[in-house]
């Protein structure tokens, strides 16, 4: 191991002094950007980079996943829990195309990930060479920006630009495709971080006029509601949101990706919005006279039927991405700004207030939801184990201190509904894309990003098997992630829809599963199967007490449904509590 000073000296010497290969330049660029962890998978075209990586092992840790999709999801989760861009390597052709689901997932959820793919030698591009794919064309609709590099001397500038674009403004994935000859040829290395692109301005001056009009509306509102989205977490506006809500006394509801941006146990928190969100915030969205949307994009899962959405409300939209403003709903006040900046400016302009009567309406809804849904789900005294009670127990045992990772489907909705989040960025989930198979690799990325935190991954038996090979990654690097399989032998969410909207015709949703405990054991992961309620709590405690990874296969009631539900095409105020 080199000392810090030696490393620094080595870097300084490289800067503008020495001729190095393109492959080494890539690694040097990453070090300049403060990267220390890479997720990836090697292959023919990217071999020069991997070869060099052996010389950089003291500074760059490479996590070899078992599939490129796993590397992409892990890199995204790493970014979500650390706030730093995730880095992902893949080779040309199938390596690059295997990333696409992961890239699209990061794109829809605005997560900065720098993807570096290798490309066949430049002379062969366009000839359908072995393992050649036009990944620039393929990834164009799902990246914030992408670029192909064919000359080694272009590598530093393009990578610097990629980092700048990925992490500023509304963050997102970027892809740099580098030909094999550019990796092999030499260049005089000089690195300068990018902080300016003429055609891209993420630093938007405050729209003070709009903020002033927003303040007037807020000061005159009688039934205002704050909708907090992922933008709150991305801009680090948790404290500002709290200060704003507390000063104005306005209740706060959260989108799925906004969860953990506002403490779940705060007196002003009213819960989750959307299709399987809480009763109060859905029902009362249509009673609000003012909606203050912060860093969110009025996704259809949040709004339900747009024609019947928030018709009594004036809408203020704070959003850094101008293309999201007036996209799904027409708003009254556009604040095209960073959430943190806008809230900071707004707080002194609003008056101290309280809306006790209005908040009481939410509490009445809470009570109804508790009796009809939450209590039977989290505190059942008979029947098989339910997903809700597992999540509620984990929440209780970890005291809201864990990082929760989910797959997609019922497991995800239950985790989002019943975990009480108390720290920002403690939920890692696939929101916009709804990518099954996200959970296991994302759990790995989250644990590697935050080794100091307990990381609990909830997956269904379906989603687990989409990326189950990543148990190999857990084995190889001994990643102490806790995996809870909520196992109902069904693709639960699809089965729920078949139950509700397709006459209970369970077409291709029942799964014949392997023994997950045996599989985990084969990967040297301690595991246990639980099917009795009386063993549940002790098993969860046993799992959390384990130093290393652990898989708990929990047999869940086969045909449990997630409620409340805003059915597709329904209005949020038509939210259903029961079947």
């Amino acid at each position, binding site marked *: 191991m080199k000392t810090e000073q030696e490393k620094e000296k080595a870097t300084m010497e490289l800067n503008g002094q020495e001729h190095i290969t393109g492959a080494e330049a890539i690694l040097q660029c990453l070090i300049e950007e403060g990267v220390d962890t890479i997720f990836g998978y090697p292959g023919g075209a990217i071999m020069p980079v991997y070869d060099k990586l052996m010389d950089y092992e003291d500074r760059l840790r490479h996590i070899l996943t078992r599939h490129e999709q796993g590397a992409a999801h892990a890199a995204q989760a790493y970014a979500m829990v650390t*706030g*730093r*861009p995730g880095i992902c390597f893949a080779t040309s052709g199938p390596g690059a195309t295997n990333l696409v689901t992961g890239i699209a997932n990061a794109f829809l959820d605005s997560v*900065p990930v720098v993807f570096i793919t290798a490309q066949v030698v430049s002379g062969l591009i366009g000839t359908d060479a072995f393992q050649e794919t036009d990944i*620039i*064309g393929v990834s*164009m*609709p799902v990246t*914030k*920006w*992408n*670029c*192909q590099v064919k000359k080694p001397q272009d590598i530093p500038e393009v990578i610097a630009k990629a980092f700048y*674009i990925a*992490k*500023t*403004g509304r*963050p997102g994935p970027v892809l740099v495709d580098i030909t094999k000859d550019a990796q092999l040829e030499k260049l005089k290395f000089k690195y300068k971080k990018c*902080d*300016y*692109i*003429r*055609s*891209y*301005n*993420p*630093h*938007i*001056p405050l729209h003070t006029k709009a903020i002033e009009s927003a303040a007037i509306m807020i000061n005159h509102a009688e039934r205002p509601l704050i909708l907090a989205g992922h933008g709150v977490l*991305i*801009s*680090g506006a948790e404290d500002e949101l709290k200060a704003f809500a507390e000063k104005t006394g306005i209740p706060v509801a959260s989108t799925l990706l906004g969860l953990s941006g506002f403490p779940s146990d705060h007196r002003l928190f009213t819960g989750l919005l959307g299709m399987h969100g809480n009763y109060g915030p859905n029902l009362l969205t249509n009673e609000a006279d003012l909606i203050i949307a912060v860093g969110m994009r009025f996704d259809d899962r949040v709004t339900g039927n747009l024609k019947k959405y928030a018709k009594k409300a004036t809408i203020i939209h704070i959003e*850094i*991405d*101008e*293309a999201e*403003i*007036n*996209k799904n709903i027409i708003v009254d006040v556009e604040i095209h700004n*960073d959430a*943190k*900046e806008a809230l900071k400016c707004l707080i002194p302009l609003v008056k101290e207030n309280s809306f006790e009567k209005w908040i009481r309406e939410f509490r009445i809804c809470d009570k109804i939801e508790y009796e009809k849904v939450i209590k039977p789900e989290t505190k059942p005294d008979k029947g098989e184990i339910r997903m809700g009670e597992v999540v509620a127990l984990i929440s209780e045992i970890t005291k809201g201190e864990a990082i929760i990772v989910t797959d997609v489907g019922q497991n995800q909705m239950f985790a989002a509904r019943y975990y009480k989040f108390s720290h920002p960025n403690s939920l890692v989930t696939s929101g916009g894309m709804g990518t099954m198979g996200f959970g296991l690799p994302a759990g790995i990325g989250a644990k590697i990003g935050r080794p100091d935190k307990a990381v609990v991954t909830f997956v269904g038996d379906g989603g687990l098997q989409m990326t189950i090979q990543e148990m190999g990654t857990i084995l190889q690097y001994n990643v102490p992630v806790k995996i809870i399989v909520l196992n109902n032998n069904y693709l639960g969410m699809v089965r729920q829809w078949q139950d509700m909207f397709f006459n209970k015709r369970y077409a291709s949703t029942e799964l014949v599963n392997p023994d997950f405990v045996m599989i985990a054991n084969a990967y040297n992961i301690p595991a246990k199967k639980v099917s009795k309620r009386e063993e549940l709590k002790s098993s969860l405690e046993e799992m959390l007490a384990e130093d290393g990874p652990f898989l708990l296969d929990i047999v869940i009631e086969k045909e449990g449904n997630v409620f409340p539900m805003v059915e597709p095409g329904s209005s949020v105020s038509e939210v259903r509590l029961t079947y």
Partner: protein
Amino acid sequence: MKQEFTISVFTEDHIGILGQITIILTRRQINIESFTASESAVKGVYLLTIVVNTTGEMVQKVARQMEKLIDVLKVFVHTSDQIIYQEIALFKVTTNGLMSGNVIDHIVRSHNARILEVSPEYMVIEKTGNKKEIAELLSQLEPYGLLQFAKSGRVAITKQVKELNAYLKEMDEANRYKTEPTFN
């Protein structure tokens, strides 16, 4: 209500930008009526002029999505009355058909068109104008044996006083106003 809009997109010279822009229109099922690309008055900045037929609301949405692209500098949306625009059309007609009497002279003069080439077999006529004027000439020439017809996309100049350079300067100043990078 659908109507004709001219979208002017000023971009950096980045490979793939045309693809990114057409993807935005394709996703919204908007047909491109015409598309032209050329370097603008500012060196290194390219101007794409796209004519589409859609609603005012939709054109604003796609314009914002275009402007969001990293390599796009500025997007303007105009209705036909806000711009000066021209298209150019070339007609190839049989010489025989047109030579009878002074028909050709009359048609060419009355439409402010001009003859580019004459051979024993065919003539090539050029007409610069708007869509309607070109369509009128086309209908007049058709009876005389039209062999080929080709029309360019629209090129347009806006009536607005503020020019791209002023916007570039503004954007540059805004870019210099820096808050801390948000995700770091």
